[in-house]
């Protein structure tokens, strides 16, 4: 069973790397963070953070960033999301989607700034165009996460709507 899980994980990481590169070049969105925010509070923290860490390291190498850049950016956006979740509901309702969209917006905006800082010690300027692109990517990411929620809704256990049935 452990071997089977390991095979699934390795295959999943390869598939994820492929999808990450594909969507990154196609729409400029980061599938890793979308999935991370989707699974946040739905699966075991240790599994989620460990997988996220590995996927982010791979994304750093394939994007030629400093190792840890993607992960650190995702964590900063997650802090923002967690802070907002204190004041607003992130479980259901339109407000939860707006909060998520803001989290995406912060993530994509930071992704413009931080890699440049870690590589060159200079912050990339945040222009209106950068904010527009970040907003566009945030909206697309939100649409994807909504679709994921709809699909995942079919796999949820009866009586435990906050957890996903994985196998």
């Amino acid at each position, binding site marked *: 069973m452990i071997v089977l899980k390991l095979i699934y994980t390795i295959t999943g990481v390869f598939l994820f790397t492929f999808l990450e590169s594909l969507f990154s070049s196609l729409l400029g969105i980061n599938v890793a963070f979308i999935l991370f925010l989707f699974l946040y509070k739905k699966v075991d923290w240790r599994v989620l*953070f460990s997988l996220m860490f590995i996927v982010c390291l791979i994304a750093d190498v*394939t994007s030629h960033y400093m190792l840890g850049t993607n*992960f650190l950016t995702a964590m900063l956006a997650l802090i923002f999301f967690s802070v907002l979740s204190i004041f607003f509901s992130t479980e259901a309702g339109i407000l939860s989607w707006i909060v998520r969209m803001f989290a995406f917006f912060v993530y994509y905006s930071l992704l413009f700034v931080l890699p440049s800082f870690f590589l060159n010690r200079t912050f990339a300027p945040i222009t209106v165009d950068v904010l527009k692109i970040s907003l566009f990517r945030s909206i697309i990411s939100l649409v994807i996460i909504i679709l994921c929620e709809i699909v995942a809704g079919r796999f949820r256990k009866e009586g435990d709507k906050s957890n996903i049935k994985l196998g």
Partner: protein
Amino acid sequence: MRKTKSAFDNAYAYISVSILAGIIFILLDSIGLATSLRNGISYVFEPVSYDGTKIGTNVKEYLQNFVEMSEFMENYSKLKTDVYEKDINNAYYLLLKEENESLKKQLNLSDISKKYVECKVLGGNDSEYIKINAGSDDGVKQDNVVSIGNVYIGQVIKSDKAGSLVKLPLSKGSNFEVIVTERGVENAAISSSPAVLSKAVAIGTGNGIKVENISADANVKEGDVVVINDEKVGSYLILGYLVGLSDNPASTSKTGYVNPLINYDDLITVFVEI
């Protein structure tokens, strides 16, 4: 033990540890201690990432074509207009070039003591006549000789205020006294006394120029130059090359045809001697 576990169950603790891990990795990578890890990940995952990026880029380019369709259409119509403009400019420059060459010929080969009017050919009623855009206002009169350099084009038969009709040498009823000389005169101005091989008469037949009455014992051959030497024209002007020379020993004279130096259908700039 339980306390430790509960602490790690906390999301904020995970986030804090993760941020710390991220910073540590950035520091390790910046001082080059994570190079082996980078190389390992790169070796395993770069090909997969490359394929994903390639497919993504191709799909993006494909979709972008649809997005930029209106821009393409706009560029296409702009390019079409540019091409038309270039064609117009090109035609204009070709005309200028042709005019320049005609003027050069006229200056080098014509009798510069005479006065000429430069004019354009507007087309003809048929192959025997051409219309020119110079008329009596420009000083063009009936019987004026039309030429380019030292090549005979025709004679004005009707002159109006702003245009004239020119009779080409191949038209029916045209006849000139001509001389047949050896080749070599086409590359330079005709000498004052060309070596006359024979005198003859050139007659327009409607679709060509026939040369008759060439002396039977004259040493003329195909390719010799037929030069007009007629009082109606008033000067030596080349008509063309002698071709189709008859070879009948019983005949008292030879006949032939003139291959004109200029294609009368392609004329643009001509000069009228006034």
